[in-house]
Each structure stands twice: as structure tokens, then as C-alpha cells.
């Protein structure tokens, strides 16, 4: 208590000055290095693709640095307007959106395309953290209920695009916020029980055919070895044939000979497993674990519940990414389009993720003098 006296700013470190947490940054850069190495191999030694990913990374680091400059109070102040605009854009996407790969995810502004569902991954935890911390914690049933509705609206809109992967990520970001806000175990238990009839309803009324097929294929990939099961079977062959030590960089036969689908995007983990083996996988998971540990430490150190809950929700959502991705490529979960965070090729999700880490850095570095 004696350090944090009102009005007294402790001497600023470099980290505080530029609002960057170097430990976290080190973890993120380690992931990006891994990403570039594996993409080079997965793309069939395509340097141009590696360069493009480098540019994506630079841009997302820029986004992180910018996000880190805004103090958490700023986010909190803008929580409601951001949420409303986000919902509005989601509705607009459904109405006028650009159709790509059978789903409307983009709004074309003429000069740039924008994916509102990506922004929602950050806006929703901000909104929920803001809403729930307006009241004393642990959160009451009434606030949890309203929070759930606030989560449900964007999740439903994103799901309708249809984009199951993003709606799961957005939904879990909101739910983690509620969980960290102390939502009682009784509510968690009843929600878990309610989930069973809900999933039946989803199956019969809401799931698209291709989504149903994915689930069925997941349950038994050998049913359809050349169709939907092909991806999972080939991915498991890639991972399994990597063994303990892997076949070596650029030597993965499953990836180099193109038996693996979506090698540089959703299935990049399989390439890594094939070429670097279980040891490589453990190293990767250690980097992830380090990043999450650092983020949860920052969350716990934060001074107000809003920052704590926001940082925690972003961190756990990050975990959902990697759990769903690794789970799906190794046959534990059905195939939903979730990339391996910061490793899969692609700029959009990386910018969102890094902005999220920027917010966490802001929470850490704006702490001492932000009253």
C-alpha cells in the first residue's frame, strides 16, 4: 500500500515510457519466429509468402504498440459506443456484406475491407468487463443474465454469417469475462446442464449442412476418407509420422508433397509436428504457456477489476484459439476454422490478437500513474 500513494508517480522505467512489456513481447516474437520458419516450409519454400507474413507481423506489432498507448480508462469510457457500433456493423455485414468463401464476413468500404467480427473479439470482453464491474463482485445472477444477453447478440450475428469459429471465440471471450467476474458455480453448473438440450436444438435447427458434416466426420473420420475425413486423417498421419524428433525442417513428406490441406493456415500445427516432432510441439506449447502465464500475472497485478477481467478474458480467449486449433488438427475436436494464434499465415486474426496483447501491455504499463 505504501508504494501506491495517490499523486505519487514512481520513477518511470523504459517499459512504462513506451508502454511495452518486454517479457510478453519476447514471447510473442518467439512465436512469430516459429511462424516464419514453419510457413517457409509449409508454403514449399515460398519466400514471397514468408515476406508477406513478415509484413503482416510488422503491421500487427504496430497495432499492438498503438493499442498499448491507450490507458484502460479510455477503453472503458468507449466500451458502450464501441459495442453499439460493433453490433451495427455486424448487422450491416449481414445485410450488405461481401461474400467470400460462402460467408458474409466483410464490409467493403471501397478503400478497404473490414471484418467487424474480428473487432468484436476485443469489443465484447471490453463491454462485458465494463458492464459487470459497474456492480460489486462477485457478479449477481441478474447481471450475469444481462451479460449473457450482451454476449448472445454478437455471437448470434457472427454465427449467422456463418462463421462458427469466430462466434465461438467471441462467445468465449465474453463468457470468460463473466467467469473471472465471479459468476457463481451454481450458474456455471446450470448453464452446463442447459447446454445439452441447447446443442440438440442447434443441431436440428441452426447448424448448416457443411457444419453438420464436419461434426459427423469428426466423430468418425474413416467414414469418408476421401471427402471430409481426408483432412483429419492426413493431418493425423502428418503429426504421427513426425514421432518424437520429427522428420526435420523442410523434410515433412505429408506437407511437402501436399497431402496436408491448408498447410500454412489452419493445419500449420501438423506441419510443425511432422517436421519437429513431439519435442517441437512441447517447445511451442511452452512458449504459449509462458505468454499466458505472463498475461495472467499482469491481469492479477492490475489495479481495477475492469483491467483484471479484460486482461484475463483476452488471455483465456487466446488459449481457446490454440486449444481449438490443436484439438481439431489432432482429431480431438471437429474442424472449425480457427487458426493457430500468431503462427498460422494470415493478417486479420493476427492484428486482432496483437491488439489484444497491446491492451494487456497498456494495463501493465499504465498502472502506476493512471488514476
Amino acid at each position: 500500500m505504501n508504494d501506491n500513494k495517490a499523486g505519487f508517480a514512481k520513477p518511470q522505467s523504459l517499459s512504462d515510457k513506451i508502454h511495452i512489456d518486454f517479457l510478453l513481447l519476447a514471447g510473442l516474437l518467439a512465436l512469430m519466429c516459429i511462424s516464419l520458419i514453419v510457413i517457409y516450409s509449409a508454403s514449399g519454400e515460398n519466400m514471397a509468402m514468408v515476406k508477406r507474413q513478415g509484413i503482416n507481423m510488422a503491421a500487427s506489432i504496430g497495432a499492438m504498440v498503438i493499442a498499448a498507448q491507450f490507458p484502460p480508462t479510455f477503453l472503458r469510457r468507449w466500451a458502450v459506443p464501441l459495442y453499439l457500433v460493433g453490433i451495427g456493423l455486424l448487422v450491416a455485414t449481414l445485410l450488405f456484406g461481401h461474400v467470400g468463401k460462402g460467408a458474409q464476413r466483410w464490409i467493403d468500404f471501397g478503400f478497404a475491407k473490414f471484418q467487424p467480427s474480428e473487432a468484436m473479439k476485443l469489443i465484447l470482453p471490453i463491454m462485458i468487463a465494463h458492464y459487470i464491474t459497474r456492480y460489486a463482485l462477485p457478479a449477481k445472477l441478474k447481471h450475469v443474465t444481462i451479460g449473457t444477453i450482451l454476449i448472445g447478440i454478437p455471437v448470434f450475428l457472427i454465427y449467422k454469417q456463418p462463421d462458427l469459429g469466430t462466434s465461438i471465440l467471441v462467445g468465449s471471450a465474453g463468457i470468460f469475462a463473466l467467469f473471472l467476474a465471479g459468476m457463481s458455480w451454481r450458474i456455471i453448473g446450470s448453464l452446463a446442464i442447459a447446454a445439452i438440450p441447447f446443442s440438440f436444438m442447434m443441431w436440428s435447427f441452426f447448424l448448416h449442412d457443411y457444419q453438420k458434416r464436419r461434426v459427423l466426420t469428426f466423430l468418425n473420420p474413416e467414414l469418408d476418407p476421401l471427402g471430409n475425413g481426408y483432412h483429419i486423417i492426413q493431418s493425423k498421419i502428418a503429426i504421427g509420422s513426425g514421432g518424437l524428433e520429427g522428420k526435420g525442417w523442410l523434410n515433412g513428406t505429408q506437407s511437402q508433397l501436399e497431402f496436408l490441406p491448408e498447410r500454412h493456415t489452419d493445419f500449420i500445427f501438423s506441419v510443425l509436428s511432422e517436421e519437429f516432432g513431439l519435442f517441437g510441439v512441447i517447445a511451442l506449447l511452452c512458449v504459449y504457456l509462458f505468454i499466458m502465464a505472463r498475461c495472467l500475472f499482469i491481469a492479477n497485478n492490475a489495479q481495477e477489476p475492469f483491467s483484471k477481467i479484460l486482461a484475463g478474458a483476452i488471455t483465456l480467449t487466446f488459449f481457446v484459439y490454440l486449444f481449438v486449433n490443436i484439438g481439431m488438427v489432432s482429431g480431438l475436436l471437429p474442424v472449425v476454422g480457427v487458426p493457430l494464434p500468431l503462427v498460422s499465415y494470415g493478417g486479420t486474426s493476427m492484428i486482432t490478437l496483437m491488439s489484444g496483447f497491446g491492451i494487456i501491455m497498456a494495463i501493465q504499463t499504465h498502472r502506476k500513474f493512471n488514476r
Partner: protein
Amino acid sequence: MFLRNRTPIRNQALENALFARRAIIAFVGVIILMFVLLSNLYNIQVNSYDKYQTQANGNRIKVIPIAPNRGLIYDRNGTILAENKPSHSLEIIPEKTKNLTETIDALAKLVTITDEERERFLKSVKRQRRFKSIVLKSRLTPKQVAQLSVNLHQIPAARIEARLKRHYPFAHILTHALGYVAKLNKKDQARIIAAGEEATYAATRDIGRLGIEKFYQKLLHGQPGYREIEVNNRGRVVRILNEVAPEHGQDLYLNLDINLQKKAYQELAGRRGSVVAIDPNNGAVLAMVSSPSYDPNLFVHGISGKNYRALLSADKPLINRATQGTYPPASTIKQLMSIVALEEKIITEKTSIRDPGWFRLPNVERPFRDHLAWGHGKVDVYKAMLKSCDTFFYDVANRLGIDRISTFMDRFGFGQKSGVDIYEEKQAIMPSRAWKRARHNQPWYPGDTISLGIGQSYWTATPIQLANSTAIVAASGQFFTPQLLGASQGANGLLQLPADERPPVILRDNYNWKIAQKGMWGVVNKLGGTAYNVFKGANYVSAGKTGTAQLISIAEDEEYDEEKISERHRDNAMYVGYAPFDKPEIALTVVVENAGGGGSSAAPIARKLFDVYLDQRSISPSLVVNQQSTADHNVVGHTH
């Protein structure tokens, strides 16, 4: 504190503790789930490593068999009879074009593509993988190759492929003996599977379908090699991991003499007939001709329906008359009949009869007529052969009876397959009491025996049976299975095929051979002999026997054809003979269907063949193959 001032009812310490608790629970959850992932990965990468390793290799490694080159076939002089020539074909890879019909239409502007070719192509497109190249038009001429090459860059799906294809330079001349190869069909495939030879034939496209090509398929085929290749997900070859070269098939040296064969084919001149020539010293088949013939090269590239229907004509070019044509032997067996009669002491060298021009059985109204209406007068066994007297042999046959004739003729190979090394052979008929009972369900009548004496009645024989029985007489009883193959050349060097000697025909009195031989000598060399004029002036001494068969059809299943009936009623001209007389080197049969008298139509052909064979021998007495060794397995070290 500041925060507490703003929300006085909140307990920050409590809230911090709550968050810390939740964060720890979440972190523990994260670690548990990470262990779930890891244990699953451990299971896949360590426990099931072998399984997935195998599957990954199965994905990427394909073993591609490489067909061996087929062995070549030479004649006894080393002239090539069957070779492998590069043949250019126009092929399309279906995967590379969006519209097959358009591609074919575009190609049709460059070369003519028949409806049949188009149809066949579209049929095989359905059976093959999309990235495999499929033949649209085969046997491109050099001009077509040039025309296509210039324009092919506009049609990336099409290409010209050069493959080794069997080629028979002598075409029609050797068809029935040599046979041909044709594309493997479903039946062949089933046979290969039944024999468990899928691996051997994995890459093979053609298989021997007839004659030598079929009989020695195994020797000619060779051992396939293979190439281990790495493929990508579309089955495209990425690189070659390992290659084992195929072992080409054995080269075959036939006993056939191409000059003799060619001459025989030319002399038959498209008429229906056959020539078989055999070396009496070892059974080597020197010539085997069946006429009319056809071009075996047509079958190599897949014969068109039109061409094939043309081969189903009344002249039956598809039949190998040398081994499948069953003819009444007629007078060409009179020397054999003499031997039986002498052996059974029905007659002696000195016995003679009076020939009034006919023979009559007691109690039978109808006489058996001689071909000379007024008879030959006093006839002994020599004159009977010289003049081909029928009455003499009616009488002899009558006195011998069916059983003795049948048993004896069996010893010369009648009524049995000769065992020559091709599959297309008929056994023809050497009648007996049992045979007639089984075949016609009738008893044997004495009348049936009479005409056996002049090689008529139920008796039929193939030209190769006649040639071989002549060889047996020429060699005084030595009996060999006729063989087309002389030697084979494989990785172990040249392997001479030993003569297949059978138990000889042993007579009670060896002098009886001399009588028969002398009788045949007279036919050619004594004034008045039925072949005397034909062989006048030859610079060798030969022996022979003419025959004129009073029967029409060559096959029991021949259709009745009104237009041809008059021509087909004419006699078959036949001749058997051997030369040189004192040291025989060649024995032969000539059959010309419906050509009339054997002396006038068949003997002249025999003369020309003896001329060619014996003449050539005097120029180059050492034949390529015989030079290497004599009998037995004689392996001569040979490097390829």
C-alpha cells in the same frame, strides 16, 4: 483510497482475492487442457508412430513396375522375324483439358481420326485415372508425326508418345507359325491372376496370342523391373527413389528357314493350302506355311472391326492349315500302307496282283474303282507306289483289316497331335472300330476298310502329321517331335533346345523301310512315276509320293456355300517327299486345296522348295544355330 471513494460499498481486497482465485482456477484449467492436448499428441506421435509412419510412406511411395522388352525372334540363319520397333502414338491426358471433345476435334483437323478411334478412346478414358495418358491414334506415319509436332504446342493436353511395339517384317509369310502379340484383354488378365503372375505382368501391355508368340510367352516376356517413386497428393511423380531395371525376355532362334518359308508362301500364291517341312534328323520344323494368310501387324495395334470381318471369309485365313487343316491323306500314305502289308506278311517284295481297274468285295454290288479305269495290269508293291495304283491297296487294306491298319498308323503319329510347339493344333482322325462306335455309334463295316487303303474313308490327317510320318520313313523309323524352336538366348547364354526323340518305329524287318523308300524313289526317279516329270533335272535325288484327295472340305464346320461348291468339289492336290535320298535333310508335305492332281499341282511346289533348301545349304552349309552345338543342353557362354 481513490477507488473505494468512488464505490464505497465495494471491498477491493475481496474482489482481488476473488479474481486471483478465478485466475488460478483458469490457469489450472489451461494447464489441464494442455496436458489433454499433449497426451493426445503423445499417443499419436509416440504410441501410434509406426502406424502413421507406414501410412505416410504409403501416401508418398508408389512402386511403378517397368515392363521388360520382349525377346526377339530369329530364324535359323539369324534373320529377324519379330522385332520391337518404336511406334508413335497420339495420346491425350484427360486431366489437362477441360473439354475432351473440343480437344479431339482440334486434333482431327491435323490428322484424320476415325469414329472407331474416337469411340475406343472415350471408352478407355472412363477406365483410367485422369492424369494417365491415353492413346487416341496409334501407328502415326512420319508425316503425321511431323504435322502434329508443329501444331501440338497449341493443344497442351495432347502429346506424341513413342513406345516399343512388336513388328513382324515378314508379315503374312510367317503369321501362323510365329503368331502375334496383342493388347492384354480381360481374359488374359483373368488367366494371369489365376496363375498368380500379376507381379510379372504388372506393366505389360501386350501378350502372345498365337503361335510361337503364345507358346513361348514366358520365355519371351522377361522379368519386369520397378521404380520406387515419390508422389504428391495428386499422384504426380516428384522424384525417383530407387530403380531396378527390367530383364528383357529371351531371344528365340527358330528352326524355320525364312528363305524356304518365303518360297513356300510365294508358291502357294494365295491359294488355300499348306506346306510343312521337317528335318528328319532332329524334327526341326524348317517351314510351316498356311495360305491364305493375313498381316499379324494388324493385331499388334488392335485390329479394326472391318479388317477383322474380312478375315472371317470362306477361305478361313485365320486357321493354321499346317496343324489345323484336316485332310484325307489320300495316296500320300501308300508307302506306309505298303510297310504295314509287308510287316504283316500280307505281301512280299515280289507279290503282284492283277488290276482290272476295280476291286470288289464278295457280296457287295458296288465296285471300288481305280483312278485308271482300265487298270494297271500286273502290279507289285513298287509299281503300286510308282503308279499310285488304287486296286493294289484296296486289296491290301481288305486283307489287313481295320485293326492292324489303325494300330500301325498310330505308331506314325496319325490321330494324335504332333506336339509341335504351338497351341493351335488338331489331332485329326485315325479311324478304328472303337472310334466309329464312339463317333457314329455304328459298327465298322468291311467297306470302310477298303478305302482306308488309299487314305480316304474316315481317315484325315494334318499336313504336319503327314510331313512327320514322311520324316519317319526317310529316317527309317527315327521319330522326333516336330519343333519350331531351335535355341533360346537368355542371360545365361545360348541354350540349344535338344531334339525331342520319341521311341522309334521298329519294324520286324528293317528291309521293309528300304522297300518303301525305294518305292518313293521310283515315283520321282523312274520313268512313268507320278512325279517323274516334275523332278527331272534336279541336281539332287529325292523321293516322294503324290496324292489326289477326293474330298472337299478342310473342316467339319465349314458352311455350305453354293457359289463356291463347284470349285470346292475339286480334288485336293497333295505331295509328300524327302531329299536327298541317301542322306535325307528335309521331309515335306504340300497340300493345295481343290487344285486337282497332286502330281501336277503339289509336286512342282515341292520341287522348288527342295531346290531352294538344298541349293542354299550347298552355298552356306553351316547354319547359324547348328554351328553352336549339336544335341543336349549345350550352354555357350555369351554376353549381351
